[in-house]
């Protein structure tokens, strides 16, 4: 698939312990939910579903359950034994681009750069809630407001370089989170 990280990096990452990744993921998602309190409401009846977020080029996957009382995160080595309602799979850089609005999920799905399975309604609810959240790197990292603009600009540049280096799909519309 387009945008996958080199195999050598993927293999190297497989020796890393999962707990630190899980703790960092929890912190980042808690920041995002705190920055966008209406997120769970937009999920509606799909709040409480468990989503398997599967970066296909990484030796781990995330099991994420967003709900009114916060978000629960678990990181697993593989999904074969895991219980979930829907799975969203793509290379990591593509998944990141969906979160920050660089990519249009439908366009990625049409071009087969994104795979989904399971509860299609839950996937759409999550996608639309993320779209409306207008998440940017600063919000996810919980940075103070004054540094948002320069940090987001720097991150956009870095991600753009990374997408080009990995031959990821072209962005669907350019600057998604910068004014």
């Amino acid at each position, binding site marked *: 698939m387009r945008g996958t990280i080199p195999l050598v990096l993927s293999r190297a990452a497989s020796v890393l312990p999962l707990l630190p990744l899980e703790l960092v993921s929890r912190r980042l998602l808690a920041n995002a939910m705190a920055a966008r309190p209406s997120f769970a409401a937009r999920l*509606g009846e799909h709040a409480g579903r468990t989503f398997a977020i599967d970066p296909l080029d990484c030796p781990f996957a995330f099991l994420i359950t967003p709900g009114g009382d916060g978000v629960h995160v678990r990181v697993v080595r593989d999904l074969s034994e895991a219980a979930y309602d829907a799975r969203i799979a793509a290379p990591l850089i593509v998944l990141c681009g969906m979160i920050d*609005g660089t*990519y*249009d999920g439908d*366009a990625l799905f049409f071009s*087969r750069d994104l795979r989904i399975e399971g509860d299609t*309604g839950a996937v759409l609810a999550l996608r639309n809630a993320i*779209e*409306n959240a207008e998440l940017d790197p600063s919000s996810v990292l919980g940075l103070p407001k004054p540094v948002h603009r320069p940090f987001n600009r720097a991150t956009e540049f870095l991600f753009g370089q990374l997408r080009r280096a990995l031959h990821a799909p072209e962005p*669907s519309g350019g600057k998604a989170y910068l004014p």
Partner: protein
Amino acid sequence: MTAARAWNGPELVCPAGTPAGLRTAVDAGAHSVYCGFRDETNARNFPGLNFDRAELREGVAYAHQKGVKVLVALNTFMRAGEVDIWKRGVDDAVEAGADALILADVALVAYARKAHPKQRLHLSVQAAAATPEAIAFYRDRFGVARVVLPRVLTVEEIARLTANAAPCETEVFVFGGLCVMAEGRCMLSSYATGKSPNMTGVCSPPSHVTYREEGDALIASVGGFTVERFERDEPAGYPTLCKGRFQANGAVSHLFEDPVSLNAVELLPRLVDIGVTAFKIEGRQRGRAYVAAVVRAFRRAIDSMAAGGKVDVEELRTLTEGQRDTTGAYKKAWR
């Protein structure tokens, strides 16, 4: 109602599936945006989409601040005995400051006209008004100011309808997912799932859609009916019965044509010539990146036409479903 900025060229009507989508469309150059409430009163009742009452008020304020109109779609058909949700939707949209209501049910049109005599009303594509007589009825009886024409008409048919509709304006779809049926009259989704855009606001509701991988192939089903098999590297699409690939008389084919997207950008000059007032972009369910790209491209095309320049027909192709596009019925290319 709030007066929008003066604009003499064609109006670019853009999708706003969420508050963030509304701001994106406004900032990208929309002349007006259309949206709906988060319930069955609008024909894009998909999970995670649409507006609650407070969000609509905020969206209207944002759009009006930038001189952009907000059109609120209440374009499903009322259920007998439960009409209050639609009437309340009309009242709340007017209260929020909507510049126009997009309606389909003739009884809701009548209610809106009676309850809000000064409110501008548009007739939804869901009403399937495709004859001069039908348009004249809505125009003369209810003062409908604009009719959104079905996507099954040719350009010549649109020209004749537009000439006959005056002073009622016409609006046509120019880009996005292509409904190949006469909208408002199609029962295929109801047949397969028990839900339809007409009554519940969803065609091929995602709750009834499944994707399954079989080797390298992707199998798409709706309501338990397998309607498409996408082979490795073949562009995928959202499964609807009308766009499925079926076997009949020994041959496998689509009913009308491949599930490609409507892209009428090359027809814009002709549509302006025949007097079409507004160009509509489909896609309230699409992401901000898509909306921004499409709205910017069409706004450039319209501004270029206004300045006597040419229209760039290539730049939108990568954003179309299946990454292929069509002029649909406008050129009568369907078999």
